[in-house]
């Protein structure tokens, strides 16, 4: 019965931004549940509030409503929620090793443990040979791999990822997606992944939540019944194409509505 409980549980959460033009409802009564081990994607156009929902779960954004993670209400950030941002946000003054070991060091692990964890993760993301490099010496893809390893070093119960591959070129992005799936399978962790890329969402997720803009709401959600492990061939399967078509229609409808609203305003 314990397993039935969602690991992340959002009940009617709203986020209001205080802007120059008055209050702005960024997120409007969003509810969603994520089961342990699940990979979900929040999909929507830019400005729809999907990152804001993620930031609320991460504990960076004050919200109205209830968010519980592992059964506890969220009041602020915590190491059980690993975070990967669109910008790698690596500490530029630390080496790859120094960045990855930051979390365990901060949480008072012994030197041996810190080294063990760091070595393992550098191997997992394939950066063992770059342990002494500084972030500015690495490519965007490598930086994002360091950021992923750094988040995983705390052995988090879940990963919150905010368009982590958005700034990468298409080739690197597709390699990173497969890489992420293999790490997710190996570690059996839970992932909430924010993206505006329809194909990325379907390729990665067990379930996709489509969000709409102003105010940010969840319009619909669907399960992705694609076999795992998924690879390049998955992208050409009938199921994938059908889901993609479905998604595009839903989003298009939304974009058209937003567009006409802007026209009137």
């Amino acid at each position, binding site marked *: 019965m314990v397993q039935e409980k969602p690991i992340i549980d959002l009940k009617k959460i709203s986020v209001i931004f205080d802007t120059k033009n008055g209050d702005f409802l960024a997120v409007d009564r969003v509810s969603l549940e994520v089961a342990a081990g699940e990979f979900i994607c929040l999909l929507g156009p830019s400005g729809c509030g999907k990152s804001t929902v993620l930031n609320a779960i991460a504990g*960076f954004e004050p919200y109205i409503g209830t968010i519980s993670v592992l059964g506890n209400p969220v009041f602020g950030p915590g190491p059980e929620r690993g975070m990967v*941002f669109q910008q790698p946000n690596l*500490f*530029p003054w630390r080496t790859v090793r120094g960045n990855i070991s930051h979390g365990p060091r901060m949480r008072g692990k012994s030197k041996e443990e810190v080294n063990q964890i760091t070595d393992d993760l550098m191997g997992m993301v394939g950066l063992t040979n770059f342990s002494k490099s500084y972030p500015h010496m690495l490519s965007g893809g490598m930086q994002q791999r360091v950021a992923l390893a750094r988040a995983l070093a*705390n052995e988090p119960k879940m990963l919150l990822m905010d368009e982590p591959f958005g700034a990468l070129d298409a080739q690197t992005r597709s390699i990173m997606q497969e890489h992420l799936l293999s790490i997710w399978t190996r570690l059996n962790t839970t992932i909430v992944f924010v993206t505006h890329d329809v194909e990325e969402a379907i390729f990665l997720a067990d379930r996709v939540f489509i969000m709409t803009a102003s105010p940010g709401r969840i319009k619909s959600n669907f399960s992705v019944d694609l076999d795992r492990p998924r690879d390049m061939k998955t992208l050409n399967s009938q199921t994938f194409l059908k889901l993609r078509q479905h998604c595009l229609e839903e989003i298009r409808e939304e974009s058209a509505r937003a567009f006409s609203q802007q026209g009137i305003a």
Partner: protein
Amino acid sequence: MFIWELAARAEGSNMVLFPPPTLVVEGMARWIESGDFVIDLWTSVRRVVVGFLLGSSVGVIMGVLTGRVQLISSFLSPVFHILRPIPPIAFIPIVILWFGLSETGKLFLIFWGVYFMVWISTHLAVQNVDKGLIRAAQALGTPEHLMLKEVIFFGALPVIFVGLRTSVGISFYTLVAAELAGTVAGVFFRIDIAQQNLQTGQVLGGLLVLGTMSFAADRAFSALAKKLVWWR
């Protein structure tokens, strides 16, 4: 140099007001020979170094405090903002009243000039550390009391160093002001004396020494900054 020499010695030019390079060299030689040069240089360098170190260390500490602690900032920042734009040279009369012609007064002036520059740049640097880095550190479980040492300090360091480097120049400006306020040795003091004796060669020589000191200090500091902000 040759043209300068010719022009200065030409018919109609005044060698006292506009001395040729040979007279500058001669003035320098006399200065060095008399033993005054070493004393003057040492006195001025010591004033700049001590004043800079005091001003910058107190400036960094206060900048971190006002940048991090809102309560302290509410009390002190308005005071600092009022005092900051007053040119250090304007304090000479009060400094003479407070400290007489002592060395403390000279150091106070340099301290004053350096302090506000370093304070404001540290204050702003600390407040403008990349939010992304702070969020990343929070998400990684960095405890609040380690945030300053682990993230804020390094994140602010590049901007703090811009302020410190500017202050190296400021400490030389204020040195001149300080040595106007009654002293018995120093590079600018010597320039002032030479001017009263119409030893224009030595005046120009002194200016060159002042320029060289300031230039060397700036270069040395910039090399140091490259080492201490190693990731840039």
